[in-house]
């Protein structure tokens, strides 16, 4: 290196040191390792020299941006009209974040106020998430419990709100209603006070409208599709033919001809994800097989769509309880909670779930290591020490071994 450039190198060295001080590389490397090897396993499982095009969207993006530039004025106006609504949670009006768990205490309900005027009242002990928002509405997941809903009509147009609870979908166009969902028995109770909602579910042959003054009391538990045999999923084509129009009556639009499935099957994760979104992601999740749900979740995670990934994984666990893939989904939910949402308590829950369901599963080592890290980050040092000891007994040379030793030595 020439002397003058050596001086430049000095500054570079300081940058390098500052970068190293920001964050140690090992968590990144470990996180990517698991994902990479999962991709390799999926590719080998698919049995071919499949190629992935993770960033295949780049060319289309460039084209889109060029077109956007050509019509910048119109696009700018359009964007302003597309501002998604925001929301505030609780009496303190804390700014809400997409995908975060909102849990009402056992003593009092939690109000949510949306910027376009709609409001929700999450009843005590209930759990929900706002999965995404758009200019005229939002997508809300009621995980368990009851919520009172009052939707405001935007002036001159129609509201677009979707509520999801287990297998149920409630489409709202501007109304007041109460809904209650219990995940244990997949039951939904809904009472509409004003306007009308449309309820769909895999156990309903056709979507059911519920108008003002009407009530609906429904359970899908006895009617959900049987769990497919994993052996049949791991070999041969998907159980759903791509020419199926109504997808065995499970309500998936046929206009996309199963293209999301073909793209995912070919390993085109980005294109598969986009196609699934075009075909209504939630409905796609209701007909996808476990491997496809894992691939959708992985694609969503890779492309920064954490909420979508969570959706796919939760649907997988709901639709295929007790399966190995449901346990893998628990592990992936733990990763998302840890890496994306920094919700270490949630991560502990999911890694512990995986270990409970698959005590000798292939992700056991990774799960114990991650559980140890998540416990430590959530402040449970005693739990982290137990995990560290357990990890070192089983994997004295494993990728988390040095961290485990560090925890025990402190």
């Amino acid at each position: 290196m020439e002397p003058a450039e050596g001086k430049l190198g000095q500054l570079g060295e300081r940058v390098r040191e500052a970068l190293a001080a920001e964050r140690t590389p090992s968590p990144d490397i470990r996180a990517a390792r698991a994902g990479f090897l999962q991709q390799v396993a999926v590719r080998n499982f698919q049995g071919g020299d499949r190629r992935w095009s993770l960033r295949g969207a780049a060319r289309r993006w460039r084209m889109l941006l060029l077109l956007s530039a050509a019509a910048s004025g119109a696009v700018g106006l359009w964007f302003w009209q597309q501002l998604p609504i925001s929301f505030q949670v609780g009496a303190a009006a804390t700014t809400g974040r997409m995908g975060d768990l909102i849990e009402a205490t056992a003593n009092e309900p939690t109000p949510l106020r949306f910027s376009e005027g709609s409001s929700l009242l999450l009843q005590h002990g209930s759990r929900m998430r706002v999965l995404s928002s758009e200019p005229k509405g939002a997508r809300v997941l009621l995980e368990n419990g009851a919520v009172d809903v009052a939707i405001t009509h935007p002036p001159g147009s129609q509201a677009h709100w979707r509520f999801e609870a287990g297998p149920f979908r409630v489409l709202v166009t501007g109304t007041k209603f109460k809904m209650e969902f219990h995940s244990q028995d997949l039951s939904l109770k809904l009472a509409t006070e004003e306007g009308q909602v449309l309820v769909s579910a895999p156990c309903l042959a056709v979507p059911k409208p519920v108008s003002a003054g009407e009530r609906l009391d429904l359970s899908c538990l006895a009617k959900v599709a049987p769990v497919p045999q994993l052996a049949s999923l791991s070999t041969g084509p998907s159980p759903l033919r791509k020419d199926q129009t109504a997808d065995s009556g499970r309500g998936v639009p046929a206009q996309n001809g199963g293209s999301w499935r073909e793209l995912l099957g070919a390993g085109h994760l980005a294109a598969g994800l986009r196609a699934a979104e075009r075909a209504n992601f939630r409905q796609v999740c209701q007909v996808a097989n476990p491997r496809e749900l894992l691939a959708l979740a992985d694609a969503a995670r890779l492309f920064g769509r954490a909420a979508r990934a969570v959706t796919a994984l939760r649907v997988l666990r709901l639709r295929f309880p007790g399966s190995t893939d449901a346990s893998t989904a628990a592990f992936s939910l733990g990763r998302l909670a840890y890496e994306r949402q920094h919700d270490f308590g949630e991560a502990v829950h999911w890694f512990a779930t995986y270990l409970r369901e698959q005590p000798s599963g292939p992700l056991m080592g990774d799960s114990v290591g991650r559980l140890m890290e998540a416990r430590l980050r959530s402040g449970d040092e005693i739990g982290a020490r137990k995990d560290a000891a357990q990890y070192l007994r089983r994997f004295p040379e494993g990728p988390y071994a040095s961290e485990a030793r560090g925890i025990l030595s402190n």
Partner: protein
Amino acid sequence: MLTPLTFVGDDAALMQALRAGHPGAAAAFYDQHAAHVHRTLRSALGPDEDIPDLLQEVFIRALNQIGKLRDFERVRSWLSTIAIFVARGHIRLRARRGWLSVFSPERTRPNHLDQPSSEARQALREVYAVLDEMPLDERMAFVLRFVDGMTLPDTAEACDTSLATVKRRLARAETRFLEAARRRPALEQWLKDGTRWNQQKES
């Protein structure tokens, strides 16, 4: 699914096994080179929460293109080339996200450097703010040469260009960096250490 068989063998055997799709070889390949690729990505991008995903993407691309790699001894610079390609794409995406974040809060780029920080963190933020203003070709040459500490030939190879071109890019990048650094007081402390930039500034 994630505990592949352990691969045992030399570099040539590893390459052959990778081409044959041996999952244990993929793990061994990753373990050998992940730290190098991570360093390259981090130098190119600065602190970024998407680095684990990008790291994964580099190796997926590498596996897809492993048939094109003729000389296994060049594997590190070959991986650097892929990493730089992926990083360039990410910088473009990040710029778009930054613009679109106004409309979509869910996709706003989280930035560790926005947190209250030490002097070093402040200077680091300034360095990458300056780099963010540079043309991508010049930025990549600059970070590979001075942050990653690569030789000129390796920098040229990683940038997938000739030695002469990379020298021109570096010269332009230095000039731009100096110009921009003059407008950023937080960089002063780092530039006071007798660097070439400081000398130019005084002249």
